[in-house]
């Protein structure tokens, strides 16, 4: 039984269909990567899974349960099982790092206060920011903010973690600190769906890759299969352009 199974999912912005039937599945502990050119719908897949972009068709199964995204209650249930990290971090600007991490666990999940606090501190040390608990996000660098965002997502104890181009907004020298934090999660067996332009990183951590173009998954396979021997012309064209440098 797949941990996350997406079949024929569709989404539109007005008349423009941005997801034209997306299907993929991942097992528990697996890491799937969505790659492809800008505007191909990679981020929209993650947004649709989080109920931020309405799904107009298809089916999503999470841990064997079919979620009906037209029901607000089931969207809440889906969000309860997943967490997303955004490209622009989106930390709450009016809160400290600690408050960012503990808000939802305390107010939404109603978990024990002491446990939430100690878990938040553990996660901050995991991402190497134990000393930044009382900082506001505008006092942190982009890489630090993104690591806080990662810790905030983990504080929700998600069954599946969605990472939306988490290094794209960062200065090159800050990319590695975020990737290192994600590597640790991969080692811990976290199930993840990653949208990324860091092909070397995808090759290293991903179990499977899906190449997307124009709202569709064009080709899937292991990183080696897709990067080294793409079968479709579109994928060959894309990878020949980006892997050359």
């Amino acid at each position, binding site marked *: 039984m797949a941990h996350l199974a997406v079949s024929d999912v569709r989404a539109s*912005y007005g008349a423009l269909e*941005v997801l034209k039937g997306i299907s993929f599945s991942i097992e528990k502990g697996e890491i799937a990567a969505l790659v492809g050119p*800008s*505007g*191909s*719908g*990679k*981020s*929209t897949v993650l*947004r649709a899974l*989080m*109920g*931020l*972009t309405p799904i107009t068709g298809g089916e999503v199964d999470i841990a064997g349960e079919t979620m009906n995204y037209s029901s607000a209650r089931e969207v*809440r249930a889906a*969000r*309860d099982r997943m*967490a*997303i990290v*955004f*490209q*622009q971090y*989106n*930390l*709450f*600007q*009016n809160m400290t790092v600690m408050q960012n991490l503990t*808000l*939802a666990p305390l*107010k*939404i999940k109603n978990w024990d206060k002491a446990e939430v606090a100690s878990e938040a501190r553990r996660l901050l040390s995991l991402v190497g920011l134990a000393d930044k608990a009382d900082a*506001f*996000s*505008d006092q942190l660098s982009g890489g630090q903010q993104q690591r806080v965002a990662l810790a905030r997502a983990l504080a*929700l104890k998600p069954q599946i973690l969605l990472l939306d181009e988490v290094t794209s907004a960062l200065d090159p020298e800050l990319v590695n600190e975020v990737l290192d934090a994600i590597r640790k999660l991969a080692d811990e067996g976290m199930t993840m769906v990653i949208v990324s332009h860091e092909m070397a990183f995808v090759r290293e951590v991903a179990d499977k890759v899906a190449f997307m173009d124009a709202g569709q998954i064009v080709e899937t396979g292991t990183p080696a299969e897709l990067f080294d021997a793409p079968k479709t012309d579109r994928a060959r064209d894309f990878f020949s352009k980006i892997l050359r440098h």
Partner: protein
Amino acid sequence: MERIFEQIPRFFSGPNLTLLLESAGLTLAMTMAGCLIGFGLAFVLVYVRQTPGKWAMPLRWICILYVEVFRRIPFIVVVYLVLFFIQAVTPDASLFTIAVIAICLYAVAYTADIIRGGLESVPQTQVEAAQAMNLSRLQTNLRIVLPQAWPVIVPPAIAFAVSFIKDTALVSQVGVFELTFRGKELNNQGYSGILVFGTIAFCYFLLSFPLSMLGQYLEKRLGTPRGQRRTRKLWSP
């Protein structure tokens, strides 16, 4: 001119000063009560107006209609409407109550747009981050959006209240004993109009100036909004 100087000692006598002080207090109380209640209700109105979904369509239209209509009616007409409406329902309502209600109705319409603008200045990405964590719309507004919107809302809201202190002079038309009403009364008692209304003008200044200072202080204290401001991102492919 001589008449004015001659009148000064008598004009600034105890009973007159008490009268002026009382009416200045009344003007301030009326404005503050009306604006504060109005400000609070404006939040409710904006919240209702932002309710998503088809079923809330009539509610949204009522809110939009309210703002658009009340912003197009002169304040004095609102005062008369409230006066006659309230008197038809409860004949013994005090004029002060009527004035506060009128101010309140007017303040709601004007501050609603200030509040809406403030809430909309907070990047949509903050709202999405909250939604992804299952925060409800109310929780998102109270915990995430509103705290970030205050610096945008407070300065124009105070500016509105300050300028509105002057406009409350119009309620003297229905006989509330506020500053302008007392001015007319003293003028009728034979005091020089220049003296009376010069004093009244000074009273209005004394009332609104500290409020302006408070506004400037709050503006500084709230500071520039935290974090970088991004334009609203509608969607990302």
